[in-house]
């Protein structure tokens, strides 16, 4: 691990203290996890502490962990945020798991970084994660009147409905999807050390 990452790690531990639920340094990147209750405060600290100086929110996305590794037991939905500091030239990944799997709610971080606005709308649209305090939480990428959250792991790839022109109604309409579900490349997970020839 480079000296720069070590500096960042130390400063994170120093600044966040108890709020830091988990810190992983891997592949030249630092990931921290925080609890929902500390989330907003953690984000504010990350932005406002000059030693950290994360002034740019690069990305925020939802992740549905329910099928992870085929044996996931933790909470299902998480929001993963990528932060960047222009002054210090370092990056950070922040993950926060929503408490309830059937009704995931997270605080909105739009007041901290305005660029989170559309990212949170996207995560709501695609994963159904609700962002408390977001002023305009509408769907963004899917069609008007779309039902469901397409990027959840239990949503089929071909969807539930398809669009067609209905000559009787004189307009386009929805009907159940006619494409049979198929898997082009089955998911394969290998045990550790597979293909090493037993060495």
């Amino acid at each position, binding site marked *: 691990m480079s000296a720069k990452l070590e500096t960042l790690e130390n400063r994170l531990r120093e600044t966040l203290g108890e709020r830091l639920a988990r810190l992983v340094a891997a592949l030249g990147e630092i990931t921290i996890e925080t609890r929902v209750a500390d989330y907003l405060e953690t984000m504010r600290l990350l932005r406002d502490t000059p030693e950290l100086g994360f002034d740019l929110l690069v990305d925020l996305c939802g992740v549905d962990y329910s099928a*992870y590794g085929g044996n996931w037991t933790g909470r299902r939905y998480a929001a993963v945020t990528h932060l960047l500091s222009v002054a210090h030239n370092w990056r950070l990944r922040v993950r926060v798991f929503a408490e309830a799997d059937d009704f995931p709610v997270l605080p909105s971080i739009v007041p901290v970084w305005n660029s989170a606005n559309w990212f949170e709308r996207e995560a709501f649209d695609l994963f159904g994660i609700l962002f408390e305090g977001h002023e305009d939480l509408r769907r963004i990428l899917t069609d008007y009147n779309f039902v469901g959250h397409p990027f959840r792991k239990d949503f089929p790839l071909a969807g539930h409905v398809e669009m067609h022109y209905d000559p009787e109604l004189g307009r386009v309409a929805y009907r159940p999807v006619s494409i049979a579900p198929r898997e082009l490349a089955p998911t394969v997970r290998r045990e550790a050390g597979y293909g090493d020839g037993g060495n």
Partner: protein
Amino acid sequence: MAMAAIEGTEETMSDIRNYTLNFGPQHPAAHGVLRLVLELDGEVVVRADPHIGLLHRGTEKLAENRTWAQSLPYMDRLDYTCMMCSEHAYCLAVERLLGIEIPERAKYLRTLFDEVTRLIGHLLSLGTHALDVGAMGVMLYAFREREDLLDVYEAATGARMHPAYYRIGGVSRDLPDHMPQYRESKWKNAATVKKLNENRQGSLLDFLEDFTERFPKHHAEYHTLLTDNRIWKQRLVNIGIVSPERAKQLGFTGAMLRGSGIEWDLRKKQPYAAYDKVDFDVPVGVNGDSYDRYLVRMEEMLQANRIIKQCIAWLRTHPGAVMAENHKVTPPRRADMKSNMESLIHHFKYFSEGIHVPEGEAYAAVEHPKGEFGIYAVSDGANKPYRLKIRSPGFVHLSSMNEMARGHMIADVVTIIGSQDIVFGEIDR
């Protein structure tokens, strides 16, 4: 309000009410399928609400259902005006997860093609921006040069638009020794063909070198057409001003951030490929308006030309492999498969089951012509990505439309769209 109080009727109130205008989704200046709902007070924009997603194809979901190598060509289809840069981010993310190092020549080839792509993207954005604002001619000039670069694409990869040239572990093949030439036809006689083929006698690098020699002259022509053009300046100067603080708060990257006066370029700050070995400058704007962003992009083209020259010089003298030799994660050479059993097995496994990427997560970003283009890949050890998030610059830039357009005239909205340099393939994904 005052009028209504005097008249005391509801009708007068409704006469001065704001009205809403639908801009797009079929508007030629919307750069694709953008539906912009504009709330107007006379000709002044009070609120701009972009409705996006009309081109949403669920690329990220599709990628979760394909093997790692199969998802690569989807990256071309995100930003279909700067194709190879998106491939680059994807390859970098997967290579980081795999922990493999690619050959030096592949790094230079990627740098070369990133810059060719930057020129392709900027030439298109310049041409269409000028067209939207009312200058027809610039597009004709810009596309003249763009055509040559697309010929480079075609000669190297076989495709003008969706090359799928970068691969996990390197690039798909080395540069060709010959540049394809025009042939005589009903429409082109011998003399025309001879003239067209003049700079196509040598290799692709010769053709590209000839281009880099010509380009500064052509670039000066764009400057003549636009930079001091009175109408162009009236339409761009002081339109869509973003302060450096707001630019960071709104998540701007690339030319949008540099136009606001912040010197931030991933090629310099977090170098990837061979950017730490080439020499170039980063232009920065002063006022943060559309005109500054235009100037930044113009200068970036000249710098891209400079980088291409350096890459050509390096590539001429350093032959070598262009794909990593670890055939657990890269396809083996065709010729080896004829005689080597193991290569045959590698080939079969690579194209049927796909490669296995160790459990973990990685975020890799490149300086895309439009800003920071990032790929966040999560792997659970399977042969497919568990989650692939595409961080596209256009999505973030368009989300600031409301703030940038507020208080401007409706015609300025077109300028701002052009200045944001948005493409819907990457915004809707």
